[in-house]
């Protein structure tokens, strides 16, 4: 990689480098940009699923708008668009996300438009995510966490930012409504500037698919780990990004859940910078112990609903992010190809779609599909199981690859 990388490296001083030092390009490209995009995705997904639900089941009839759910499967588009390269796809879809996020509060009062804008934003993120995870920079510093770990830190910061917005609005994200137009404009402007700098600094400084040989990953493995990623996304977007949901689900208090989930989430973003923690993440015994705890957290969430549920959820959110780090690290080391990343995220989004639909419908099963009544704990168990198993499966292979390198 280094030989090829040197030939395409730009010698000019990068803008982000001048502002933030040597790590400037990494900081914006691998931390701030994923943070902003993930934040916008989390916000739009709520509007998107909410509108699909309302316009169909809420109105007691299945309509054409239910077809919008397929926008969640947008990672499939990377197979058609891969000739543009992962970097260009990242920038273009990132710009699309920013534009749609800017529009979101303006259409809050118009259900059909809100569905369309939120759906498209979700779809753009579905292309953005596999594309950005397939980017391979030529000059990545070795003193800081790997790209995939840094992207997970960005994901964690996005979750924390979303929790903050919702805490400020007493669980209602005011930034996607009329009252959030100004905040939305500022957020979109920041994201736009970041994308512009990332584009200027990185064009020609990333390796594209053609410059890679296939790595260690098999397609079957990628598919299975993608299912684990779907489990992760479901658990996050139904519970671990929402302290109020954990509190209402378990009958415990909101304040404890909020503080503990926030601490667990931010702690990951901070400690991932520590080399010792990164070593633990690559050790099978470290991942095993962490996931054994996650299994206990799952049992508490599903069965026991203990008074400590908020604390358990906070620690669980830390392990969830750790597992995401393992999965994305594996993906990155499996060759970093756009097609692998596309498969991984397509499978992940498919599982997210089905888990979410079944979970939401299980509340109204008696009216929709009686077989689904009481089904939601099983969906949560399945999501936890897929994530834990995939993380445990990926972890020893990461270690092997590390030894080879």
């Amino acid at each position, binding site marked *: 990689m280094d030989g090829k990388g040197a030939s395409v490296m730009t010698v000019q001083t990068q803008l982000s480098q001048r502002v933030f*030092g040597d*790590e400037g390009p*990494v*900081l914006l490209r691998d*931390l701030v940009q994923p943070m902003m995009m993930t934040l916008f995705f989390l916000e739009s997904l709520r*509007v998107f*699923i*909410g509108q699909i*639900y*309302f316009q169909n*089941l*809420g109105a007691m009839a299945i309509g054409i708008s239910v077809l919008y759910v397929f926008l969640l499967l947008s990672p499939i588009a990377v197979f058609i668009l891969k000739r543009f390269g992962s970097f260009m796809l990242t920038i273009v879809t990132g710009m699309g996300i920013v534009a749609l996020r800017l529009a979101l509060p303006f259409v*809050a*009062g*118009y*259900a059909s438009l*809100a569905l369309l804008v939120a759906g498209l934003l979700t779809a753009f993120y579905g292309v953005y995510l596999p594309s950005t995870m397939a980017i391979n920079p030529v000059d990545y510093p070795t003193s*800081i*966490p790997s790209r995939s770990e*840094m992207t997970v830190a960005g994901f964690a*910061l996005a979750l*924390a*930012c979303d*929790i*903050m*917005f*919702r*805490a*400020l*609005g*007493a*669980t*209602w*994200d005011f930034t996607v409504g009329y009252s959030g137009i100004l905040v939305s404009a500022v957020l979109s402007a920041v994201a736009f500037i970041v994308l512009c700098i990332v584009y200027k600094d990185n064009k020609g400084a990333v390796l594209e698919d053609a410059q890679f040989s296939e790595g260690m990953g098999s397609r079957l493995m990628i598919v299975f780990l993608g299912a684990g990623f779907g489990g992760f996304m479901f658990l996050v977007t139904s519970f671990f990004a*929402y302290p*109020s*949901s954990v509190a*209402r*689900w*378990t*009958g415990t208090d909101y*304040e404890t859940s*909020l*503080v503990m989930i926030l601490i667990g989430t*931010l702690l990951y*973003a*901070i400690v991932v*910078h*520590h*080399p010792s923690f990164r070593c633990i993440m690559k050790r099978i015994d470290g991942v095993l112990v962490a996931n054994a705890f996650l299994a206990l957290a799952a049992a508490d969430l599903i069965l026991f*609903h203990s008074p400590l549920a908020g604390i358990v959820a906070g620690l669980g959110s830390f392990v969830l992010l750790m597992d995401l780090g393992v999965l994305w690290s594996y993906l990155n080391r499996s060759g970093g190809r756009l097609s692998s990343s596309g498969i991984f995220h397509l499978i992940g989004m498919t599982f997210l779609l089905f888990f*979410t639909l079944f979970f*939401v419908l299980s*509340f*109204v*099963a*008696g*009216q929709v599909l009686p077989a689904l*009544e*009481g089904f939601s704990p099983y969906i949560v168990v399945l999501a936890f199981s897929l994530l834990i198993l995939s993380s445990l499966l990926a972890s020893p292979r990461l270690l092997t690859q590390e030894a080879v390198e």
Partner: protein
Amino acid sequence: MSSTNTFRITVFLSIIFLLGSMIGLVQTLPPTPDTTPTQPLALMTYNIYQGYTPEGAINLEAIRDTIVAGNADIIGLQECDTTRISSMNIDTILWLANELNMYSYYGPPSSEQIIGVALLSKYPIANATYHLLSHEELPRVLIEATVEVGATQLTVFVVHLGLSYVDRTTQAEEVMGIVNAAPFPKVLMGDFNTQPTGEPEPGVVSENDTIYEDISEHLNDTWTAAGNVLNPPEGFTWPSIGPYERIDYIWVSPDINVVSCWVISSALGSDHLPVVSTVELP
């Protein structure tokens, strides 16, 4: 620990998010409303349609404004979602309680997989619990709470009965078993999905039920007790635009004096209209 710029920025952002969240948390700390009893006491029942307007917009500001306009002290809410992404993960009850500076109770925990009912109150809620009701279709719940209105312990029930004949009649029977066992004075309010005449809603093939008559044997319908006729158009509560059914009720025990009762016909935050009753406690 690394002292790189990425680390510093991460810590900086973490502190911002932590502080911002703490500010939000302070806003949602338990309320401190003025609990001095006022007479008459205003009661409201309102089905809030899982947080949406009939047009599909999030309706919480409209719901809040309606409650403020009704000057309600104790509010029973039905179709409340507090957990699912389908309601944008908004905890509707936490938000409303925070905005209205009121005490709240929501039941059951969402792990029961029921779209719950809730109670908001200007007065402290001393005890609260929920009762799961029998069902063939959607699962339903009755919440029971003791509200301390000055020295008076008012027992308040909130319910949303099922749509089918079997569900709503069976559930009404269970509800009255629990309500009749509770001490006076007591209030039962909610969406009963039945008309005072017992007829099913237009278009639904079902036998007539006797739920209204059965409840009336034990409790007073505040609508008629306030001097209104049984089933006039101005009493219709569903749908909110062009209503043609009276299915939302506030019932009180005979020891409570009903002063007035009306439907807020201008409320457009939900597919139901709210009912407000002013009463004097014994």
